[in-house]
Structures are given as structure tokens and as C-alpha cells.
């Protein structure tokens, strides 16, 4: 084993340990405090006590969703920062969240949920996200390849257009509809549908595995597109592949959990300080750190003003932003 293997193993093991700690703390924290030994006892005995219900039916699904969404958003951020070679890109920059919000907004105003049930929100969110992906991709895709900087601008413009339309719809909506829209836009990890949670977990894990197939290509791409071509990288295929992976990950997260900002921007950036910019460690590092970060933020969001709950996006923004500014002032982030 060489130094790099040892260093990477240390990083992954530390992040796994942090993830486990975050998970256990989140399980124990809430209106009913449950100690670690009680958690173990309850889980191992399997008896249908009140604690068992709280842990298994209320807290655990939420923690699992936070794991999947936090990991996926952070991974999508790492991927997009890599293909755009720009540290300020995040999953929402491509307009995907805008498209998803517009979809959900339509569902609320047109009362589609009355026809198909609560699953109408994630479905319409995903349709909005998918349409945005197709539009951005369609406009930026040319015979000579994917125009990557143009793609960024188109994404930003689509964000503006869709948020304007959302505001337009809100300004002519009834107040209870407005509340529904605002609540969704702020993002929440409360998801009663077990199938959606499982699907999010499956997609985020699949995204992580898929990202590794082209991780070396992305490392070479960091040297510039022509340089990567000289090394034998199929630049166009690499960009398209990662664009699709990042879009699907973001689309799923936005549809299930609404808009949770900062995770995809701050976490990969923060992880890069410790791992360097080799995507082989950055991907897994960002995934694990993003998962822990969102579990941690969600725990605060649901306990800090209990019995009320704050939107988790508020917490990720405040904590993420401040920790990041502190970290930037302490250590140089290199690109």
C-alpha cells in the first residue's frame, strides 16, 4: 500500500465514522430523547414499543432520506464543478430546481394532487426537472460538441424565467396555495412515501457508482479540454455522461425534498480542501460528507424550535455558509 491509498482510506473511514455518529445522534435527538443504549436495545429486541415506532417509523426514514439527498446533491455538485471547471457551480445552477419548482407549483395551483394523490408533487417536480434538462441539453448540444459555458448561461436564464413564472403564479393564487408552494420550495425531508425514499437511495447510490466509471476522464479534463483529448479522453462523451448523472441526481432530490441549497456548493468545496481535486477520492468524500451534513442540519431543523420545525434549507444555508467562510479564511482552496 502506498501513501495515497493509506491517505484515501483514512479519509473514507473518518467520513464513515462521522456519518455513523451523525446518524446515531439524529436517531436519539428529538422531542423524545433516546439514549444510545436504548437505541441499540430497541433495535435489537424488535419489540413494538413507543420508542420502536419513533425510531423506525419517524426518525430512521428521515435520516435515510437525508443520507441519500445530502449525498446525491453533494456528489452532483462535485461532478458539475468538475465538468465546468468552476468552483461556483452547484446542482441548481443548471436551472433544474427552477424547472422542478415550476412543475410543483402547477400541481398545487391546478390541484393535480386531488387526482393522483401526494405523489403528484415528486412526479411533477421530476417532470419539470427532466424538461429543463432536455431544454438545456438540447440548446447547448451542437454538432461539434457540448458548449459547456453556454450551458451554464442557459441554465441560469432558465432559473430566472421559471422563478419569475412561479412568482407570477403565486401573485394570482389563493393564499393556501401560496403556502403550499412556499413550503415546498423551502425544502423538507419529511417524506411519508416509503417507495420514494427507497427510490432516492437507489438512484443516489447508483449515481455514485456510475460517477466512478468516468472519474479518471474527469481528472484528465481538469487540465483543459484539448489537453484531455490529447490524452485520449472522449471529452464530449464524458461531459454528456456527467451532465446526465448530475441532472438525474438533482432532479430526483428536488422532486422528493424540494430545494435544499448550499449542500451541493459548499460540501464538495470543503471536502476538496482535504482530498485535493482527484475525483476518485472527491466523489466518495463529497457523498459521505454531504450525507452527514444534511443529517446533522435536519436534526437541528426539527429540534431547534420544537415542536415547530424549520425548513432544512435555512439551516444548511446558515451553517454551510458560515463554516465555509471560516474555512476559506483559514485555508487556501486550490483549483
Amino acid at each position: 500500500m502506498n501513501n495515497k491509498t493509506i491517505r484515501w482510506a483514512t479519509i473514507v473511514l473518518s467520513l464513515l465514522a462521522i456519518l455513523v455518529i451523525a446518524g446515531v445522534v439524529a436517531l436519539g435527538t428529538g422531542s423524545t430523547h433516546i439514549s444510545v443504549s436504548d437505541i441499540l436495545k430497541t433495535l435489537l429486541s424488535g419489540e413494538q414499543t413507543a420508542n420502536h415506532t419513533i425510531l423506525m417509523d419517524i426518525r430512521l426514514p428521515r435520516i435515510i432520506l437525508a443520507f441519500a439527498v445530502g449525498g446525491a446533491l453533494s456528489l452532483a455538485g462535485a461532478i458539475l464543478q468538475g465538468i465546468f471547471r468552476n468552483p461556483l457551480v452547484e446542482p441548481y445552477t443548471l436551472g433544474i430546481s427552477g424547472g422542478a419548482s415550476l412543475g410543483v407549483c402547477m400541481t398545487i395551483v391546478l390541484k393535480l394532487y386531488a387526482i393522483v394523490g401526494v405523489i403528484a408533487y415528486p412526479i411533477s417536480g421530476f417532470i419539470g426537472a427532466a424538461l429543463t434538462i432536455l431544454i438545456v441539453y438540447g440548446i447547448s448540444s451542437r454538432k461539434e460538441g457540448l458548449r459547456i459555458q453556454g450551458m451554464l448561461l442557459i441554465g441560469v436564464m432558465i432559473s430566472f424565467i421559471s422563478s419569475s413564472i412561479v412568482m407570477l403564479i403565486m401573485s394570482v393564487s389563493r393564499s393556501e396555495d401560496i403556502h403550499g408552494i412556499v413550503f415546498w420550495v423551502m425544502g423538507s425531508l419529511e417524506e411519508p412515501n416509503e417507495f420514494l425514499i427507497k427510490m432516492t437511495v437507489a438512484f443516489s447510490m447508483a449515481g455514485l457508482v456510475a460517477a466512478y466509471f468516468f472519474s479518471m476522464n474527469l481528472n484528465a479534463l481538469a487540465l483543459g479540454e484539448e489537453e484531455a483529448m490529447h490524452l485520449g479522453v472522449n471529452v464530449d462523451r464524458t461531459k454528456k455522461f456527467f451532465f446526465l448523472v448530475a441532472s438525474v441526481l438533482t432532479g430526483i432530490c428536488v422532486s422528493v425534498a424540494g430545494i435544499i441549497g448550499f449542500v451541493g456548493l459548499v460540501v464538495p468545496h470543503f471536502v476538496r480542501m482535504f482530498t485535493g481535486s482527484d475525483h476518485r477520492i472527491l466523489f466518495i468524500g463529497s457523498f459521505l460528507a454531504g450525507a452527514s451534513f444534511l443529517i446533522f442540519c435536519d436534526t437541528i431543523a426539527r429540534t431547534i424550535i420544537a415542536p415547530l420545525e424549520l425548513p432544512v434549507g435555512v439551516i444548511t444555508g446558515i451553517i454551510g455558509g458560515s463554516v465555509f467562510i471560516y474555512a476559506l479564511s483559514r485555508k487556501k482552496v486550490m483549483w
Partner: protein
Amino acid sequence: MVSNAVLDIKTVTVGYRKDPVLIDIDLAVAKGDLVGIIGPNGSGKTTLLKVATRILKPWAGEVMINDRSIWDVSRKDLAREIAVVSQGVESANVSVYEYILLGRFPYYSDFQFVESSKDEEIARKYMELTDTTHLKDAPMSEISGGERQLAQIARALTQEPGMVFLDEPTAHLDITHQVKVMDLIKHLNSALGLTVLMVLHDLNLASEYCSRLALLDNGRIHTAGTPHEVLTYEVIEEVYKTPVVVEKNPLSNKPFVLLVTADEIARAKEGE
């Protein structure tokens, strides 16, 4: 025409938008050649490298390596045959060693994401050869221009190619580093048998180091041949549109081009 050409550019015309930058270019490079491409700014030197490395597709004509069109060879296969040292790599946040190791990329299988110990051994070998071992852990963005050029050459060698193309390898370097880089390239050519094609601005470096030169003018090859054939007073004045004095380097006997300032021209005219 060179019969055993490893690179054969056949009547290639290419450009970026509507107007062609290169017109009907014919250039054959034999195995073990050290060819310099020279010419004024905008004459199409860099474009020639781009069309020869599959960055640009020719509008007409063909580029062949080892008797196959480069467009019929996969990108990875091409990268095992041709390594490119371009003008300045983007300062990505990678250490010199990681950068050089990326030269093994063409040898990785499709879903491989861990390098083998053999890859690392090859990278280390060429770091030693290029005298970059001591820079191993330094970030690419923090080393000097000369060191970066050497690291780029080490990365190119790590690709274990048959040919290396270099785009102005001595740009922005002081004379110490110019000579160091060019001596290294010459050594690679003579000792390792690498075929070298390089774009050069400095006519005197081209004269000293290259076995053959191709002088581009307005997208066409004006003159091609040995430095003695290409670097003559008449040819240079016609292409560069400035008077020069061509002497012989007393040590190497190669042509040596001296500039003539406007003041000198005025003085010469007064004297007439």
C-alpha cells in the same frame, strides 16, 4: 516525399470558420525525424498541430499516421502514438507527479480508475529522465515556466508514444531553460528514437536543433528542407517581410539569423 513516413499530411485544407487557415498542405515526417515548423504569426503553425492531432477535422485532404487516417484510430490509440506538449496546461490543482501519471491514461481500460504499480514506475522513470523528480509533490500551478515545460515533456513521455508534438516549447523561457528543454528534446530524438514535430518561433533554435524545417507562409508551405535550405536571406525576407542578416554559427556551422533594426536600414541607405 518520404517513403517511410510515420506522419503523412496529404493536401490538407482546414480553417475555423469560413476562411481556410491552411491550404493544400503536404508534409511527411519520417520515423526518427526532428522537424521544426516555423513561420510568422498567423501563418497557421498551431493549426497544423491541431489538424495533425485530431483536434480539427480537415476540410479536404487526409492526415495519416502509420498509414492509417487519424480519424480511423480511437482517441486512446492515437494518444499512445502521439503525445502533445501544448502551450501551457491549465493550472489544475494537481501535483507534478499526479499530472505526469495522467500520461498513463491512454493505457487504462474503460472503467479502470486505479493506476498499476507499472504505471507509477514508468512515470517515475521519465521524471528522472527529465529531472523533475524533486518537484514530485509541488502543485503544477506553483512551479516555474521552465519546470512546467519539463513536467509536460515528462507527461508526454509517460504516454510512451512514437511521436511527440510540441507547440513552442521554449516560449517564455530564459536562455538557460531554452537550451535545457531543447537539449532534452534532441536527446529524446537521438537516444530514444522519438519522432519530433515542433512549432518554433525562434529561427535560431530551429536551425540549431531541427534536422528539417517547414516554413509556413499564409497557410501554405513556402519552403521545406534542411536548415541550410530554408534559412536563407532571400526566403526569410520574403516571408517575414523584414531584412535580416544570415550568418553561420561558428561552432555548429548552422545558419544564424540576425535582426536588422530600422535605424540600421536607414544608415545603410544613407551610405549608398
